[in-house]
């Protein structure tokens, strides 16, 4: 098994204006996803949601600036660290990851040594 990071990149604006109903649906979708990962023979090592990019602070060198590193419509809003057999398995799992206002990016975790 190898580790992959699923980065959830979505339109933050859509969440800012979402109704409680939508939030409820998103939460349910993520709960379902957790079960689906197990069914697929993978494992969620960790998964978190991030505060919006309006709360981000960037540092380059020693200059501290307000805001995210790159200003884009779709920003990383959360992530899952998963275990999967190979890329096809990881993609199979990542396709199920909820991201109704955007998509996900899958990155293999680098192993040193």
């Amino acid at each position, binding site marked *: 098994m190898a580790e992959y990071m699923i980065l959830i990149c979505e339109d933050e604006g859509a969440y800012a204006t979402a109704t409680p109903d939508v939030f409820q649906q998103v939460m349910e979708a993520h709960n379902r996803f957790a079960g689906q990962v197990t069914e697929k023979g993978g494992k969620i090592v960790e998964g978190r949601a991030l505060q919006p990019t309006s709360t981000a602070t960037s540092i380059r060198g020693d200059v501290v600036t307000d805001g995210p590193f790159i200003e884009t419509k779709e920003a990383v809003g959360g992530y899952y660290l998963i275990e999967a*057999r*190979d*890329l096809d398995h990881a993609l199979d799992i990542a396709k199920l990851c909820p991201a109704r206002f955007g998509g996900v990016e899958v990155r*293999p975790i680098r192993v040193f*040594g």
Partner: protein
Amino acid sequence: MSGSPPPGEPGCGGGTGAEPGEAGAGAGTGVQPGTVSAAVADAHRREWAFVLAATARVAGDLDLAEECVQDAYAAALTAWTRQGLPRNPGAWLTTTARRRAIDAKRRDAVLRAKLPLLIEPDPPASVSAPPGTGEAAERGEVIADDRLRLIFTCCHPALAREAQVALTLRLVCGLTTVEIAQAFLVSEPTMAARVTRAKKKISAARIAYRVPDPAELPDRLDAVLTVVHLLYTTGHTAPGGENLVRADLVDRAIGLARMLRTLMPDEREVAGLLALILLTDARRATRADAQGRVLLLEEQDRSQWDRAVIAEGAALVPWALRGAGRFALQAAIAALHAEAPSYAQTDWPQIVALYDALLRVWSSPVVALNRAVALAMAHGPAVGLAQIGELEADGRLGAYRYLPAAKADLLRRLGQREAAAQAYRAALALTDNAAEREFLARRLTEVTGTPS
């Protein structure tokens, strides 16, 4: 094929005894060096994919596999000169390359254990069997499957299209980076970086060395067929340079299509692609005149088309067409052209109908443009021109040289010389291929009043 087939020399193709590279020195079989290098070159052309695919599974790493296969080809030159040509060069090379891979893995087992390797999904069936045994059985099934694993890995959707193409040429066809760079008109360092990056992604992201599951197969196969078709079209009309056709790329594409057809005999789209390539390529000799000037379908000497190749391609079409896939439909169109007695007597309404079906499975503006040309032939230039006008408004073909070229031709047929000239100029501005430029310039001169 220049190399003569290897004679039935009982060199070291047998299952027991004779080991590659270990035959008694000075056995003095007296094989001419020229014969040997021709046999090695022939084996490179025919067997590279087979040898590399089988070695990759043992090596567990594409770079190591490539190194070992290159070593095996180098070793063949001396070994075959001393021992005579093996009965089965592919098996000899595979055995030699695999043994080197096993040795190399043993040698730096510690180092390699830490590096991400090529992912082998199922436990390899025959790795532990001593090399040199059971080759016949392996040739039948296991290794055939390995070549598919190799090409599906090279064409994995997680790799960019240009990386898929480069890897396929490098790993499946055995081309050098220099050759691939030349074919695609990029610098050698650029191509080397492209290949290295793609290989790194295969190991770092753990792209598995396998044939996709039946559920994913249609999409994944389409990527493989697209790559082979892209190789063909790149060779068919070179994107730049002096010559219209790059015969080397065309031959590689035909070789790959034939290989896939052998390995996946039940896939209708594979048959469709092979048919499409054969039916198009049967006209190769007539696509330019003796001076290298482009000749349109209309102007080509149909008596010079390769009838045997057309027959082979056309025979695949009915079965392929039952899948109604995009390659089969294009092949059916190519078959109608290839079998028509003349341009005017082509079954244009049937071609329009096939383009309609093609647009349903593959909604591409390029298909729509081709349909417009067929429509013009079936119902007159004005009808085709109206369709092209819609495509122009759509905008997706803004940089596609064949749109203004097709428009120019229809305007010329309608006698609208001024508008035709304008369209020819637009086409010229988008065209880099010297032969195509010459053609467009010639037509431009015709419509701008020089009496003909």
